[in-house]
């Protein structure tokens, strides 16, 4: 670290972050103490969504790519887990042409595959979508997500529009993701891990190119760097992390459905990223927590909570663009990330 202000900013962030993680780690104990396991479930969900939002922030906040189909990467991975589970339960393998793939409830096998599937989808769709920009990019990502959504809706063997329950939770080594507490800590570890990963990427040379591509593309070409490949790689990484969130989501819900990949879900993810503060590391975490909290809080007030959520989003976009992270950043000095 070079400057004293940057160092103290780094320290404040580190302290705040550590406190946050410690508080999260304490939740299951507090929930046991008060005898209400609900909190473990909802915080698990918030953390999973935080991972989703962080993955989207990489391309949206830092890379300036307005992807309106991010939920497809999450949902696809969830379905991989659910499908693997169904085949394991029925004992019948999945037949894909000449391949016969047995089911599995071993997370060590299924989760990497789920992540790989999401990454592959990101590669295929990204390579086409990134040839367009602006308006067209938004629309094409939306349409691709719809495609995946419809594939899920029409897949009657896997529940169709009703979705697919996951009866046997995957096991991660000695841990059982069906156990709420064990899942909670698995997700917490993933949350911290993803945060550190994204922090590394954003600060690296690659991250520098990514951040610059959204600010001034012609200048980037003028120094000899072609933005397309950096964007595509960022897109794939983002898709992979979203896939991880999807695998975690499957265990968290014990159920997957096309709703997990609807464009409404994609829109909500964008709201979380913007709400939390784009192009900041912890913004998406704050955004996800806040959005889900609002959803539950408002949902308890009225079933028509979207009447309030809609205008709230509009007001935030019109008047509070810097997001929640903006408040934190302006209250402590120095540093930028």
């Amino acid at each position, binding site marked *: 670290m*070079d*400057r004293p202000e*940057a160092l103290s900013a780094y320290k404040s962030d580190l302290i705040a972050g550590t406190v946050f993680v410690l508080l999260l780690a304490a939740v299951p104990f507090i929930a046991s103490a008060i005898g209400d396991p609900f909190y473990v479930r909802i915080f698990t969900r918030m953390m999973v969504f935080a991972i989703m939002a962080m993955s989207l922030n990489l391309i949206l906040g830092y890379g300036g790519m307005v992807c309106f189909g991010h939920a497809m990467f999450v949902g696809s991975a969830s379905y991989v887990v659910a499908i693997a589970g169904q085949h394991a339960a029925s004992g019948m393998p999945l037949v894909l042409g000449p391949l016969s793939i047995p089911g599995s409830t071993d997370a060590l096998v299924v989760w990497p595959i789920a992540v790989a599937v999401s990454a592959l989808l990101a590669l295929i769709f990204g390579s086409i979508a990134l040839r367009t920009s602006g308006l067209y990019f938004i629309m094409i990502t939306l349409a691709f997500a719809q495609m995946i959504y419809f594939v899920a809706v029409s897949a009657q063997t896997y529940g169709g529009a009703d979705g697919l329950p996951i009866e046997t939770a995957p096991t991660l080594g000695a841990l059982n993701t069906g156990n709420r507490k064990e899942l909670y800590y698995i997700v917490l570890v993933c949350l911290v891990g993803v945060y550190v990963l994204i922090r*590394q*990427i954003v*600060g*690296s*040379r*690659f*991250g*520098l*190119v990514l*951040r*610059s591509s959204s*600010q*001034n593309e*012609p*200048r*980037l*070409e*003028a*120094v*000899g*760097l*072609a933005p397309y490949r*950096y964007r595509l*790689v960022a897109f794939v990484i983002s898709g992979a992390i979203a896939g991880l969130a999807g695998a975690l989501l499957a265990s968290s819900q014990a159920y997957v459905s096309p709703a997990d990949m609807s464009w409404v879900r994609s829109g909500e993810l964008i709201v979380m990223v913007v709400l939390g503060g784009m192009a900041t590391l912890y913004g998406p975490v704050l955004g996800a927590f806040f959005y889900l909290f609002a959803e539950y809080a408002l949902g308890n007030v009225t079933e028509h909570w979207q009447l309030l959520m809609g205008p709230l989003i509009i007001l935030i976009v019109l008047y509070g663009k810097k997001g929640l992270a903006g408040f934190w950043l302006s209250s402590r000095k120095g540093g*930028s990330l």
Partner: protein
Amino acid sequence: MSGSLLQVQDLVKTFGGIQATDHLTLDIREGELHAVIGPNGAGKTTFIAQLSGMLQPTSGAIRFQNQDVTRLSTVERVQLGMARSFQITSLWPALSALENVMLAVQSRQGHAFRFWEKATSSKPLREPSMQWLRRVGLADKSDLPAQALSHGEQRQLELAVTLATEPKLLMLDEPMAGMGGDDSQRVVELLRELKSSYTILLVEHDMDAVFALADRISVLVYGRCIATGTPQDIRQNAEVREAYLGAEA
């Protein structure tokens, strides 16, 4: 032609009814500082845009190191060694001055695709970048975001970013535009230093700088090159005087 780094042959660019570049032919010799001057509207920036690949000519050819680059993209040309600076400052506003230069350096060094090391802490990246910032006098402002710099400082940063790509041919589009006396002087000194290591194409309005630095000067009028020669020749050229003095009188 031997010793010719860049050859522009019969370049034409038409926009609808307007001919911005009208059969422009000139060549730039290796090692020289070749200035391009001309009254406003002569098509100097359009010319640089075609040289850098941001604009496709209607017809004609551009050869760099005897290779036809007319159809190559900007990125490909930069990788071959042709780099330009922008007349209207073009930077990455939210990134620091250091990060701005680093982008050029990491492109030059060929390792922009790395994920692990923190860019601003990396020595092989930081040191050359700080060097360039020092040369344009911005070393003490390295951590400021580019948008926080004054206009003159942004022009200097613009120059540093272009220089950091270490091209074989430097194409500078009015680097001194909007600069005050001291800053201009600094740029002239810097260019004088750079002359010995780079071939430079300099588009400028500042005549003192041009006549002080140029080995050869080409004069552009209405998209055509009407004269090329040493500063002496150009000063004495009747056609040039008419075009310039006529335009300025």
